[in-house]
C-alpha cells in the first residue's frame, strides 16, 4: 500500500530556475528575419538571417543579386550563423521573392522602420 505522503519526491523542494536548461525559451529560431541598417547618407543595408537549412545561401545570394540588381555578400557570424547581406533596402523584394518560391509568409519577419 502506498501512501502518497511517504514518497521520496518532495513537492516543496526548491525547483531552481525552471528555465535553466532551456536555451531557446521564446526563441525566434524558426523565423527568417529581414532587417535593415542605415549606413551613411541615404545608403542602407539589408540582412537576411535565419534561413532554413535546406536552402543554399550561396545560391540564394546569387539569385538575389541578379534579381534585385544589387551587390551582396555572405557573412559568417558565430551566433547567427550565415547571414546574407545586400546593399540597399531590399526588404520587401526579399520577402516577395521568398514567398514566391514557396516559403511561408508567416515565417518571414520583416523588421525595421
Amino acid at each position, binding site marked *: 500500500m502506498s501512501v502518497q505522503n511517504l514518497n521520496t519526491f518532495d513537492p516543496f523542494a526548491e525547483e531552481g*530556475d*525552471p*528555465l535553466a536548461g532551456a536555451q531557446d*525559451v*521564446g526563441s*525566434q529560431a524558426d523565423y527568417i*528575419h529581414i*532587417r*535593415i*541598417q*542605415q*549606413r*551613411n547618407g541615404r545608403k542602407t*543595408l539589408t*540582412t537576411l*538571417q535565419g534561413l532554413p537549412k535546406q536552402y543554399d545561401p550561396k545560391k540564394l545570394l546569387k539569385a538575389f543579386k541578379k534579381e534585385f540588381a544589387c551587390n551582396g555578400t555572405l*557573412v559568417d*557570424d558565430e*551566433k*547567427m550563423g550565415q*547571414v546574407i*547581406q545586400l546593399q540597399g533596402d531590399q526588404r520587401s523584394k526579399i520577402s516577395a521573392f521568398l514567398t514566391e518560391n514557396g516559403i511561408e509568409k508567416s515565417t518571414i519577419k520583416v*523588421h*525595421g*522602420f
Partner: protein
Amino acid sequence: MADEPLFDPSLKKRKKKTVAFTEDPLGPEADPTAPAPETIESTTVNGDAVDLGPTTAHEAMKAGEDDEFKAMFGDLKKKKKKKEIPLDLGEDSGSSTPTTAPAAAAAAGEVPQITSDDLDFSDMKKKKKSSKKKAAFDLEAFEKELNDSKKESSEGKTKTKTEEDEDEDDIPVDTSHLDIVDEFELGDNPFSRPDAPIGVDAGTEAWLSSDRDYTYPELLTRFYASLHAANPALLSASSKRYTIAPPSIHKEGNKKTIFANVTDICRKMHRQPEHVIQFLFSEMGTTGSVDGAGRLVIKGRFQQKQVENVLRRYIVEYVTCKTCKSLDTLLTKENRIFFMACESCGSRRSVNAIKSGFQAQVGKRSKNKTG
C-alpha cells in the same frame, strides 16, 4: 473592440496630429447605432426591453478604467461638437418634438433625436458648453454636467409631459446598468425618472402611431437609439479609441535623431522606457542614448513616420492584449520572461524577449574595435 485593433490607416490620414488607435472608426459620420452590435446583439432579438446585465456591467467597469486614458482621447472633442449641433436644433424647436434635426437624422434615423433630445435636455440647457455625446466619452465633462444638471433639476420638473413619457422607455435599459454609468445617469436627469408614467409608450415615431406591425429593423433602431442616448458610456466602451501623441522627432546634426516624447509615450502605454527603447533600437538596427532631458537620441536619420511604424509594431506585440485587444495591459518580468497581464480581461501571457539580430559592420572598422 472586436475588429481592427490598431492604427486604422485611413483614420490616420485624416488627422495627422494624432496617432489614432482605433478600435472602431467612430468618425463624425459614423452611425451611432452601428458600432455596438457585436457586444449586445444577442440580447436584442426581442427588440425592446433587454437585460444587459453582464455585458453592460463589464462595459461599465471598463468605462471606469477608461478614466486614465482620458488623456489619449485627443481628438474626440471635435466630434462631440459636431454631435451637439443637431441636438441644439431640436431644443430650439421647443420641447422634444419629432422635428428632425438633420444631422441626427442622418446618423440614426428619426429615433435618436427624440430620445436623445429629452435625455440631453438637462445638458443642453447649459449653453452647450459641455456637450453630451452619444459616442464620446469624457468623464470630466460628464461630471460637470452632472453637477449642473443637479442644479437645474428643479427647473427640469416643469418640462412638458411628453418628454417624461419618452424617458420612460429608457428605463429598462437604465436600470440594467450597474456601476458608474448608472450613477451618472441618475445624476443626469433625476427629474424625469420618478415622474415617468410606466407603461406609456413614446408615440413620437411616425410608424409608432400607425396600426401596422412594427418591423424588426425599426424596433432595433429605436432600441439602439434610446439605449445609446441613455448610455453614452456604453457606446464608447464598446468602441474605445486610444490615441497616443505622435512621436516628436527632431534632427540633431546630420547623423542623429532625437525622439523627444519617448517618456510620455511610454507612460501612456504603461511600459518601461528601457523596454521600449530596447525594442526601438533592435528593430531599427541602431544604437543611441537617453539625454539629460529624458529624450532619446537615436543614431541615424529617421523620420517621424518611420519611428511611428516601429512604435506600432511595439504596441501590437507588447501592449495589446491578444485576447481582448485591449491596450490596458501591464508588463512584468518573472524568471527572465516577460509576462503581459491584461487589466480589462485578466488574461496573462508571456511575450517574446526582445532580441537584436545580426548587426552588420557599418562604418569604419578601425572605429569598431572592441577591447
